[in-house]
């Protein structure tokens, strides 16, 4: 999978590129409007991460150009502006998703994964981790071949963990993924803990192992013990 990251902030660009490369993506980067435009016209990418505010021009211009040449490329807009107009304009021009700065890299990863599933596998591909299997099209989870009844939040949580396995996920990042803006209410993250506890219990009841490791004071990590 080839990803083009268009972002003018060098440090942020490096972090994103490093993170996604580690996940096995081939990453290219562009730091300005013109380099981005050149790359978009000359090469083909599966996914483009697009910052709207760029030196030299508006990222929406790149989006237009991109959609003319390669309409199949998935586009995820990254914006510092939490503005509805940009969001609406971006989605109207054919962007697939929208994420506002600052964001958790794990969240970015989850969005990229979801985008890839939607665009290229049409959701037919199941996600497998050891004895756990998720069918994202039908929202079905199986452990040891046995279907597991999960609540919507537990399902989201498991998918998020599997997408970001072997990575420390802070409680805040998990809360934001599960509840979006409502995470404001998850003051002490007790709720995150209780959802994780329930998920863990359900998986283990069906003969699964406990892969959710608690990283004291920070969060959780989904990993093969």
């Amino acid at each position, binding site marked *: 999978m080839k990803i083009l990251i268009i972002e003018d*902030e060098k440090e942020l660009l490096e972090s994103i590129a490093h993170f996604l490369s580690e996940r096995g993506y081939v990453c290219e980067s562009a730091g300005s409007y013109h380099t981005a435009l050149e790359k978009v016209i000359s090469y083909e990418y599966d996914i483009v991460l697009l910052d709207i505010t760029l030196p030299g021009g508006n990222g929406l211009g790149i989006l237009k150009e991109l959609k003319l040449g390669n309409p199949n490329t998935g586009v995820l807009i990254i914006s510092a502006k939490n503005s509805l107009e940009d969001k609406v304009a971006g989605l109207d021009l054919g962007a697939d998703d929208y994420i506002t*700065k*600052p964001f958790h890299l794990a969240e970015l990863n989850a969005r990229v994964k979801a985008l890839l599933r939607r665009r290229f596998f049409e959701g037919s591909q199941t996600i497998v981790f050891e004895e756990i299997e998720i069918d994202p099209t039908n929202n079905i989870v199986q452990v040891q071949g046995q279907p597991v009844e999960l609540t919507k939040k537990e399902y989201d949580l498991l998918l998020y963990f599997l997408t970001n396995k072997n990575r420390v996920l802070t409680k805040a990042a998990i809360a934001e993924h599960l509840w979006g803006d409502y995470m404001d*209410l998850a003051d002490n993250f007790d709720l995150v803990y209780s959802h994780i506890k329930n998920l863990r219990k359900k998986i283990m009841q069906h003969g699964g192992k406990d892969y959710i490791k608690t990283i004291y004071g920070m969060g959780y990590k989904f990993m093969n013990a």
Partner: protein
Amino acid sequence: MKLLEKNNRIFIRFMALLLLLGSILFYVSVNWIARSEIDEKLEVNQKRTINLIDEGQLPPQFAPIVEVKISPKKSATTEGFSDVQIFDPEEGEEEPFRQLVAEVEIKGAIYRITNRSPLLESEDLILAIGNCTAALVLLLFVWMYSRSSQKLWEPFHQQLQAIKGFSVSQNEPLTLASSEITEFEELKTALHELTEKGRSDFQNLKEFTENASHEMQTPLAIIQTKLEDTLQSSDLTEEQARHLAVANDAVLRLTRLNRSLLLLSKISNHQFIGEELVSISRLLKTQVNQLADFIKEKKLTLRMDLPEDVLVKAHPTLVETLLFNLLVNAVRHNVEGGTIDVTLTNQSLNISNTGHSLDLPSDQLFERFKKGAASQESLGLGLAIVKKICEVNKWEIEHSYQNGVHRFAVSFQ
């Protein structure tokens, strides 16, 4: 006292004095001119009388205008001009006369010739002048009050009215009426510059807040990303991990604060354009669903009385934000096992929740960064945003606290 009244008083006092002096001067000069004219005339008449006698005609007799007496010898009485009072039997009163007396020797006889001319009665003259002056003062008074107050000060009053209604946050410049009076034109220019300065400063300040919030997003994103990268490292000591976690929480808090400030300044800047009919009932249902986890966690009882499709005309994002903030508030400041009541009608929305009493008065509740000492996690911006949204939509919001229940009432009219 009005400036106009003060000005008129001074002016009228001065004018009255001036007119009084003027009248005296007028009286004196009229009197003097009349007398010298009379004296001239009397001299001419005297010459004519002498000539007549000289020609041998009968000396004219027309008392009291001309009297000629033949004296045997020169009398001791003085010759020349003098003023006399002579009784007029016709009018029955004494009348003032000017007389010229001369004793002339013609052909051996001594004639005592007296020429007289009636004088103006001074009281008549004083009365006439006095009346004229009084009439003038009255006229002046009426003119000043009617014309000058109405016409002259009109632009001033218009300007005053315009400034009274001025606010630095208004979108249009102040409109002031033009005037042909230099001072008022200068005042207009000065006011225009002043208000425009105020408006543009205010605008800059608002834009500054917005730009500052925008510019903060990217560095925050970098900090957050780098912190999370560092968290991935496996050889962190426990203390380092704890520091990182604290820093991470602080960044999150800053992010939320920044987003709220940005939202607040965007609402103030009227950047949410495009009203549409929004169903509050539908939005409330969606939001309450999102809150389900938190309501369950706090063991809250939620009671809702929602009629189908209560519609309001507003920007959807703003309505969503309003409901979000009020509902989140009702959950956050609730007590374990408490209640939330949501009642919606076509006119109003009431959200009540059990909770502790506040240590700040109701009216301060909606101010920025005002929050109860107990709520550490709250940013203190939620209700300021709610208030702002109500303001731009011209809705009323009220808070009350009674018997352990907080009640927020929004009325849509």
